[in-house]
């Protein structure tokens, strides 16, 4: 088989067992010293009934060992800092370092949520400013920063629709969700108490207005759509679609996870969405952190503002900020306190670093990059929906599957080439989907390397499919036994 140029090589990395296996009695990673108050015997204060003698199996290690342990673990990870992370739908963009600095400033990182408003004006201002910026970017009128992640933003939004329609007399029963939707959409609908009704996409991967017209009965509360949709395609008839829903007494929820395609280009409020969420951990550069924390602000049109979660941050006439709990129509709280504040700080820092022009340039690069990848790969990989794409593109393994190699296998082989794989298996409407979102954080150089790798793998599939099926060949672990893990789950260490 031809030896294709790769942009990665194996290098020795340390093994590292579980921290519990390093433990030895008497070690400790902190020294606390004596308290400055008279000592008190916890066992006496608590008495036998309550007093716990020890936590069996808890680790005992020194500070150094903790540093080594997690440093070593970290080296087995791949992050945006490592390289291109073209994971479709995840918007793995650069996480600016200044954001990490400002989020850790004493005051912002330390203020207590129940401290009096007059001593937390800085935090409140950050919340208020960010809400205002997000309203400007989406064209919406009001924003709550409370939801902890996208899925919670979705739930909040659906509950808002419910509250509004209930106020109008009938909350109705169903929410329409296109079959291309992200898994959280149907799950959030289910959590809200609505029932989900799927909506079939048309030949262009988009919502079919006729289909929608049929589905949009008076039992349907609204439509939950994603724009650009999960194929990376802009719903060109969006206006018509929203009007249709509105005409039939429904409301339009927009999943804003793909806003990286639209910032500065088009505003959901302008094309008809009534309520939407944003993922600060996608569009607004707050780090994914290996799975969170995220932040999923929900933005609404004026008429939905009364339903937003409580409390809201408000600015008084004298310029001071405060929390407004007097919101009788609110859906209530979706979590404790005011949201993932630390993420909000980072998002605001990102917005301010860019300004309007910077954000527009960012969107342009994101879309340019995705189109470049799509066009340079479509001769070797099937392009199921041949439309200009926005921030991401979806190819498929159709041709490779004929040789027994599927999207997952190609993804794993990419690892040997030094890349994090694209998203596989999503959206569900594309069999063998390969969903590629380079984001604006990829340079042309990165993309060319990635494209070369993808093309090389396509060749390998022709020449030696078995080899690809066994990939990756250069990682610390080889293919793991998933089935065994699920059959007899081992979910914790035991001595």
């Amino acid at each position: 088989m031809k030896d294709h140029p790769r942009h990665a090589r194996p290098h020795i990395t340390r093994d590292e067992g579980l921290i519990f296996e390093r433990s030895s009695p008497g070690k400790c990673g902190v020294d606390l010293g004596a308290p400055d108050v008279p000592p008190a015997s916890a066992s006496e204060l608590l008495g036998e009934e309550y007093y716990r003698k020890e936590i069996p199996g808890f680790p005992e290690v020194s500070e150094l060992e903790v540093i080594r342990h997690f440093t070593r673990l970290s080296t087995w990870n791949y992050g945006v800092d490592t390289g291109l992370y073209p994971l479709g739908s995840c918007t793995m963009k650069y996480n600016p370092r200044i954001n990490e600095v400002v989020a850790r400033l004493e005051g912002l990182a330390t203020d207590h949520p129940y401290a009096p408003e007059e001593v937390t004006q800085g935090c409140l201002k950050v919340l208020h400013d960010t809400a205002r910026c997000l309203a400007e970017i989406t064209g919406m009128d009001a924003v709550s920063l409370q939801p902890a992640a996208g899925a919670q933003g979705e739930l909040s939004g659906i509950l808002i629709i419910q509250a509004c329609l209930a106020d109008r007399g009938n909350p109705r029963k169903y929410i329409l969700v296109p079959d291309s939707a992200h898994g959280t959409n149907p799950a959030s609908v289910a959590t809200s108490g609505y029932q989900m009704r799927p909506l079939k996409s048309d030949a262009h991967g988009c919502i079919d207005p006729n289909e929608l017209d049929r589905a949009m009965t008076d039992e349907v509360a609204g439509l939950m759509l994603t724009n650009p949709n999960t194929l990376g395609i802009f719903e060109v008839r969006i206006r018509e679609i929203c009007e249709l829903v509105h005409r039939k007494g429904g409301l339009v929820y927009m999943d804003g996870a793909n806003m990286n395609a639209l910032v500065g280009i088009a505003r959901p409020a302008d094309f008809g969405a009534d309520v939407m969420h944003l993922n600060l951990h996608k569009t607004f550069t707050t780090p994914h952190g290996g799975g969170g924390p995220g932040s999923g602000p929900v933005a609404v049109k004026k008429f939905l503002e009364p339903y937003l979660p409580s409390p809201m941050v408000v600015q008084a006439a004298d310029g001071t900020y405060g929390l407004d709990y007097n919101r009788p129509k609110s859906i209530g709280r979706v979590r404790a306190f005011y949201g993932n504040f630390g993420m909000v700080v980072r998002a605001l820092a990102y917005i301010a670093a860019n300004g309007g022009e910077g954000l527009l340039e960012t969107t342009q690069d994101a879309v340019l990059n995705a189109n470049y990848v799509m066009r340079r790969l479509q001769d070797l990989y099937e392009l199921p929906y041949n439309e200009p794409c926005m921030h991401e593109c979806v190819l498929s393994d159709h041709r490779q599957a004929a040789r027994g190699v599927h999207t997952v296998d190609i993804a794993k082989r990419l690892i040997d080439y030094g890349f994090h794989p694209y998203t596989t298996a999503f959206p569900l409407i594309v069999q063998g989907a390969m969903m590629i979102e380079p984001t604006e954080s990829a340079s042309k150089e990165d993309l060319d390397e990635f494209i070369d790798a993808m093309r090389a793998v396509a060749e390998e599939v022709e020449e030696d499919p078995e080899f690809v099926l066994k990939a990756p060949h250069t990682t610390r672990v080889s293919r793991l036994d998933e089935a065994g893990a699920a059959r007899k789950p081992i979910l914790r260490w035991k001595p």
Partner: protein
Amino acid sequence: MRYLPNSPRDRAEMLRALGYSSIEELFSQIPEQIRFQGRLNLPGPLSEQEILEFFREAAGQSARKYASLLGAGAYSHYRPAAVDALLSRGEFFTAYTPYQAELAQGTLQAMFEFQTQGTLQAMFEFQTLIAQLTGMEVANASLYDGSTATNEAVLMALRLTRRNRVVVAKTLHPEYREVMATYLRHQGTEIVDVPYSPSGQLDVAALESAVNKETAAVVVQSPNFLGAIERFGEVAELVHKNGALLVVTVNEPLSLAIVNPPADADIVCGEAQSFGVPVAFGGPFVGFLATREKFVRQMPGRLVGQTTDTEGRRGFVLTLATREQHIRREKATSNICTNQSLCALAATIYLCLLGKQGLKALAEHNMAKAHYAARQLADVPGTSIPFASPYFNEFVVKTPGNADGLLRELQAEKILGGVSLERFYPELKEHLLVCVTETVSKATLDRMVEVHRNFSVRNEAGAGARSASSRPVGQEKA
């Protein structure tokens, strides 16, 4: 823009390759009338130095110069330097969730474990640590926060019991109760409150009459919102006799280093912010949920499992993903996707650093300080500690006058003296919830007591019907 790695030349070359003559053409499919024509009215562009100045200014308008006796679900503990040093490694904080899996050829295939073994192993350790702390068999890899973890526990109990009625202690954090109300409202679930007894603990008699055969779960927090550590023996019996599940919420889990975990609980959930996660105005925090092995298939959120690779080496994968939204969609056990991984990592690092001895020593340290403060306050004439049950680092103090007034006086002394309870419990008008952690010095506590004393002296003088209002509050109808 400094974050963008494409040069003008790169862009021109790419456009040329695509056959476009301008960047505008990329967006030509978007109908003209819905294109945004204006300029976004946003701050910036700012240089990095300007960003720093902006946020320094904001950070300056904070409570950082104040000593804080605020707890109530958000606890200030010292965060060892190693925590942030490790969290700041790009491989951790700029990685994605290792969550994708595909149902391929009839079996589930995970995709990203090769490049996220670090996070996966750390999350497996988190699960173990939480299971050890709570005395449960298994724990998941985090939920949003204590409030949603408690709510998810309740949803889980509804699924497990197929019942639709929940009994909740009034001393569950009021905001957690609000969250539950939001989520359950539309499920037609009945929520029944149980008051606290004069000791501050759950009113067991009231519980007895509240719990019945339709009850899915009984939810109790410990230490509860009033600081009281609950006793579970009788409670658990009552709950289980009715076929319900006992859900215990812990939002100051440091207590678990010296307080027995609720061994008879079915689900122990809560908030792990205390473990190395900054208070940060209330978020991001890190919810946890631990339970018995037999309930694992109804758990919400991600689970990391241990397995082996083809060469027999240990490795970690996300497992039981068929519970989750990306596989099961509307039938998933929860809609959660992104969770609080990095905060869970912080907690993992923190717990490893402190370890068995350090965590216990710290808990004792907190307890000694809180009890010192409470004793000093109890000595102030007119001021009392109304609840007699054992407490950890947080307790209620009853003042002989308007609590908000007292808080303002403390504030003038640069002390945030506690949370006024009236806001959450109208019957606790002159009561403050006071939290004392290792971050507060004895000198501050002594100063705090002085302010209380002066306040008492002044209010005692003017007080008329004092004896009436000093009757233990728990006896009032809750």
